[in-house]
């Protein structure tokens, strides 16, 4: 469904990604793991075209993503739940969600989508009038995920959804991403919470210094000695 082929990318004169290739099949739950600053978020941003690759190609289904303006990516069915939530802090939860459904397709289903995400996250229904900036971290993350889902995507990019969340909330988020996956969405997730992520994912890629150094089934990698050393501190 998503193919990233030999991509180099970076910010200005700083190159961050080096010849990155990987793929995500339809219906799959794929995970990127790697240290801070390894370039995981940069990969996500490159897929969303927020960062332009200087080399290589990215394909989504039959569409070549290179050169498409970043704001058109969502039309193709890719939703990006960015690192650090990136909510619109001075707008209400409801408004944030509405802004998730600006594409023509999503707009026509706005009511149903709203119902759907409120079912998924009952907490958001309670807080729909609250300004997003005043939500607790966990609630903010829920709001960000829900906002992503409002576009009725085929695939969701989750960038560290458990960032800054208490273990309890982290559990919630994992349960929810799992549930969304069960509902048929393709997921590409970046997580620091390596162990837990590797446990639930179908496929995983390990990123070090902007290069994919390893790939495999989640559980296989969990057993891998290098991974254990690098990410689990064992």
């Amino acid at each position, binding site marked *: 469904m998503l193919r990233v082929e030999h991509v180099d990318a970076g910010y200005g004169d700083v190159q961050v990604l080096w010849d990155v290739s990987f793929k995500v099949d339809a219906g799959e739950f794929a995970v990127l793991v790697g240290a801070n600053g390894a370039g995981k978020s940069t990969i996500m941003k490159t897929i969303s075209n927020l960062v332009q690759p200087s080399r290589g190609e990215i394909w989504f289904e039959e569409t070549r993503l290179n050169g498409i303006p970043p704001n058109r990516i969502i039309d193709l069915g890719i939703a990006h739940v960015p690192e650090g939530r990136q909510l619109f802090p001075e707008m209400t939860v409801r408004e944030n969600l509405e802004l998730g459904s600006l594409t023509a397709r999503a707009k026509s289903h706005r009511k149903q989508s709203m119902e759907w995400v409120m079912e998924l996250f009952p907490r958001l229904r309670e807080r729909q009038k609250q300004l997003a900036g005043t939500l607790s971290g966990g609630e903010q993350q829920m709001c960000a995920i829900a906002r992503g889902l409002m576009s009725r995507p085929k695939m969701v990019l989750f960038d560290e959804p458990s960032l800054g969340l208490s273990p309890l909330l982290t559990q919630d988020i994992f349960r929810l991403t799992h549930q969304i996956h069960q509902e048929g969405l393709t997921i590409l997730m970046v997580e620091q919470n390596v162990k837990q992520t590797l446990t639930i994912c179908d496929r995983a890629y390990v990123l070090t210094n902007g290069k994919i150094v390893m790939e495999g089934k989640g559980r296989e990698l969990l057993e891998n000695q290098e991974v254990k050393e690098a990410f689990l*501190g064992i």
Partner: protein
Amino acid sequence: MKFFETRHLTKHFGGLTAVNDINFEVEKGEIYGLIGPNGSGKTTLFNLITGYHPSSSGEILFQGQPIHRLSTWKICKLGIGRTFQIAKPLRRMTVLENVMTSAFNRAPKKSEAMEKAMEVLEFCELASKKDNSAKGLTIGDRKRLEIARALATAPELLLLDETMAGLTPQEQTAGAELIRKIRDSGITIIIVEHIMHVIMNICDRLLCINYGQEIARGTPAEVANNQAVIEAYLGKE
């Protein structure tokens, strides 16, 4: 007189209590680790120590002197250096100029500052990049520069905020080595790091906080086996 201590240190951001009644002390010459989940208040704690944020209540004592009312630059002058979690190099200066700017803290003459800066760059193994512009550095070098900048102010206490995040395992080992070397040169260190094998290896003592509150303290081994820490931070094995 304790080398460094905090007493009932608390910080509120509006309704949020980012640091809540933290008491800890650091002995001269040790490496003191500060761990805790994201958002638990570690960076905020550093920001309180360095006067970047005023504390809501509590005291901070450095070599017996209360410093919690001082401004950031005075605290630096007293001998507390820090790095930023998100590196803040002086972007349009070269590496050498960056470090020289810090070195002026103790060496008002330009030639002295240059000497001191070169010394620090050698120490941090950045000397070969001294004429590179800071904005073009790789992640690893940026982190090193961040340390070099703090070191060049000739601190007695150095606060390191995730200086090894984003480094490869080998670089991490080298980084840990560097930190040890810094300590051996007589500088006391408080370090925040998420990379467990580094923390476990180099720290003499650890404090683990969550939601701004202490949940455990002690030697690395003690903390690593503490049930609360495992639940909140390390995860269940």
